[in-house]
């Protein structure tokens, strides 16, 4: 294994104007914790993650609070709002794009994972999205290649 060209990438992306419902279907069907949000030219403009999904379902102010233990008694009242969430465009909820070049060497990929808040990176070739790479899959491929 010498580059990401030898790994299995997951083709998981949605256009930036897609609704959350579509992004939820895509992220649920794949084994990576984030999918790419792409523009018309397949450029990665963000990542849709399980955090994005959670934030779309529950009140956004939960994210603004430093303390939340006091909510215990009333959590049942803060109902998720699936209808409103499903219709929102993913661009309102996506995280910053975390990308890596298809030809990056493996130590560079490892460093990107260690410094990224996400456990999956969008792999790009000449600026265009080619697939998602999960951290676990990346490590598993290296171990498998070493016969372990």
């Amino acid at each position, binding site marked *: 294994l010498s580059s990401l060209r030898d790994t299995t990438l997951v083709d998981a992306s949605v256009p930036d104007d897609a609704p959350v419902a579509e992004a939820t279907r895509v992220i649920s069907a794949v084994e990576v914790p984030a999918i790419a949000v792409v523009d018309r030219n397949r450029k990665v403009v963000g990542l849709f993650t399980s955090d994005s999904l959670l934030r779309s379902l529950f009140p*956004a*102010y939960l994210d*603004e609070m430093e303390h939340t233990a*006091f909510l215990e*008694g*009333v959590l049942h*009242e*803060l109902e998720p709002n699936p209808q409103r969430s499903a219709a929102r465009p993913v661009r309102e909820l996506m995280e910053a794009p975390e990308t890596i070049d298809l030809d990056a060497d493996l130590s560079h990929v490892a460093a990107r994972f260690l410094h990224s808040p996400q456990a999956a990176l969008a792999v790009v070739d000449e600026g265009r999205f080619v697939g998602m790479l999960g951290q676990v899959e990346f490590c598993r491929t290296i171990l498998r290649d070493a016969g372990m």
Partner: protein
Amino acid sequence: VETLAAVLFLAALALIALEFVHRTKVALVGAGLMVLAGVLTEDEAIEAVDWSTLGLLVGMMILVGLTERTGVFTYLALRVAQLSNGQPGRLVFLLALVTGVLSAFLDNLTAILLVVPITLLLADLLRISPIPLVLVEVLASNIGGTATLIGDPPNILIGTHVEELGFIDFIVNLAPVSFVVLLLASTYLYFLFRGELRSDPERAAEIARLDAAADMRGKPYVGRSIAILLGTIVGFFLHGPLHVEPAVVALSGATLLLLVAADDIEAALERVEWATIFFFVGLFVMVGGLEQQGLIDEVAEFLADLTNDSRTAEMFVILWGAAAGSALVDNIPFTAAMIPVVDTLQGDDFDDGRWWALALGACYGGNATMIAAAANVAAAGVLDRSGTPISFVRFLLVGVPVTLISLVVASVYLLLFQI
């Protein structure tokens, strides 16, 4: 060079007001250009920085930031909200009071970032719109912050610049008028919003179910943090008799807290808002440039001519002018520029009346528009991210009448007690 200094400062004010670029970048670029263009020398630029202001800001950021970790402010806000029994009308007055008091003794930006998310939750539980309650809090934070030397950035600038004015002077001269303004503004806002503040009595019970103390249980250093914060506030009251600057009090409290209640110094110092500190540094250098070029003296002479050297007229021009300037730009750069003007106007005879006029005008002017004070911008940001944005015009329609009420009360106060 004089014209260049004026153009650079006015351009910086415009860019800060329009928010195209972060205000800290604007201030630092403006300061750098002034030094490069020879408006002031490097030594003059360093001398222009008011290190007492920076010390007070850094000390308070560490103190408040570390104490906030303990959950005590959340506890306080929730307990006060629970006193409303879930009645939105009562909630207006209680939230105004708690935000006003927290703003006076912490700072208004911290108070807003703390109470607004809690208010969004309360409004959600009561199934009412959060916007009226958040507007009440923003306006109360600027009014409450006016009451003390540490409550609002304009007061910090004035209090650290004018040696004769101590913490107690601010309380004695500004707290009573701010209390009256807070009461009148809350009453006005209550009548303005009462149609939007009807809630189902069953929903009200949910507020009582919040476990206010939950976040404090099991947290380390709760007692020490509260004791040191309270001790620092007592220190502010005593800084005059002890002949110690407020900055020294704040930094001593912060150092003590770092010693006994911070395991990770790096994480503790992350509580310092460096963008704000560097904004002040850039601003001090720019104002220093205006002073070096004699522009401040020219503005002071213009004001003296305009008011025919009448002290009363000067005070009213400072009050209403500072409010208008703060509303249009941002009350921090406006106050920083006005301080040397007021210095020149008072000459060799110390006159606290002019300083109270500036403090009242700059702080109350911060309520007129969404961009006039940092607390307003922060609250609008939280509302926006929470899916309940407030428009510039809606803020204006509420903020301007409250500002006018505040300025009329301040004018009466100046007439009765300062002239």
